[in-house]
């Protein structure tokens, strides 16, 4: 708009630099967003970034109510993302609990429930309804789910091996306990 000011002159170098820097910055920002959207931090075959788990009242693992994912290194960790408003989750809830009953005494496999954007009442109702005893933590601010998958749909289940590497992702509910068992045994 400043054409008359720069009569018959080109664009001065500082202005040019400013334009290119602005453009590069904009593209970098969008690039960041794109990378973020397309590559969740957790990828199969790669180590899962650490996050905090603060279990719901009444839940714990080995007597500990607050831990990091990395505290579970050396065990197979199965992270099930659920929500009380999610109908397909109800379908697999008994299977997950049954799987926990099978594995919990071995101490070698941990099943963790992560409750995605839920209300306290809903969560409590769900946990009671299905008699869920495996450790469960809320993820109300979607800190955990955004590490695993930026566009989370529930239920999704993440299988992490003893070295902390993501091995398998199951989207949607499990058909049976057998399915859970076969995935876990394939990771041994």
């Amino acid at each position, binding site marked *: *708009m*400043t054409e*008359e*000011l720069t009569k018959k002159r080109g664009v001065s170098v500082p202005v040019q630099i400013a334009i290119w820097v602005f453009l590069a910055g904009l593209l970098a920002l969008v690039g960041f967003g794109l990378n973020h959207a397309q590559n969740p931090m957790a990828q199969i075959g790669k180590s899962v970034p650490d996050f905090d788990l603060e279990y*719901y*009242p*009444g839940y714990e693992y080995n007597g500990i109510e607050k831990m990091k994912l990395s505290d579970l290194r050396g065990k197979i960790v199965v992270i099930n993302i659920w*929500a*009380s*408003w*999610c*109908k397909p989750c109800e379908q697999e809830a008994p299977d997950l609990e049954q799987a926990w009953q099978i594995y919990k005494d071995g101490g070698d496999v941990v099943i963790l429930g992560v409750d995605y*954007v*839920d*209300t*306290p*009442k*809903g969560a*409590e109702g769900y*946990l*009671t309804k299905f008699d869920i005893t495996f450790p469960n933590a809320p993820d*109300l*601010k*979607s800190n955990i789910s955004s590490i695993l998958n930026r566009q989370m749909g529930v239920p999704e289940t993440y299988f992490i091996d003893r070295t902390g590497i993501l091995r398998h992702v199951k989207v949607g509910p499990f058909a049976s306990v057998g399915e859970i068992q076969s995935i876990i045994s394939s990771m041994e």
Partner: protein
Amino acid sequence: MKKFLYVIAFLFLAGSVFITSPAFAQGGTPPTDDEVNAIARKLYCPVCESTPLDVCPTEACYEWRELIRTMLAEGNTEDQITQYFVDQYGARVLSEPPKEGFFWLIYALPPAVILMGAVILFRSLKEWTKPKAAALVIGSEPAAASPKTDDYLSRFEEELKKQK
């Protein structure tokens, strides 16, 4: 499981301590849908991105609305309920970022850029409208002698002038 209930009870107790105007606690009338929606309209549930809570049809949002209803019945004010949701689910539940810290940028940047644009525009206008260019105008416009342009508009406007 018991512990869980205690926590909820505590939450509501804690909430009721700060009540300034308990709207429904004494009256005992259950909150109406309109009262629930009035608060829900200003909230966004992460499950229903870019749809306000009062019109989002998902089950998750239904539960949120029920939570608002319960909290209203417990006597919480709108601010307390909103604050509860922010504490629990993060700032993204608000319809716009809170006016604090980094988030000031969203409010400050557009006026700053617009102001900058306005200043540049105003200064350019002043520059252009300076009478200094008289000589230049005559030099650069040899056709100034023939006011007739091919533009209908100006012809018409002249016509109009004659009529008066």
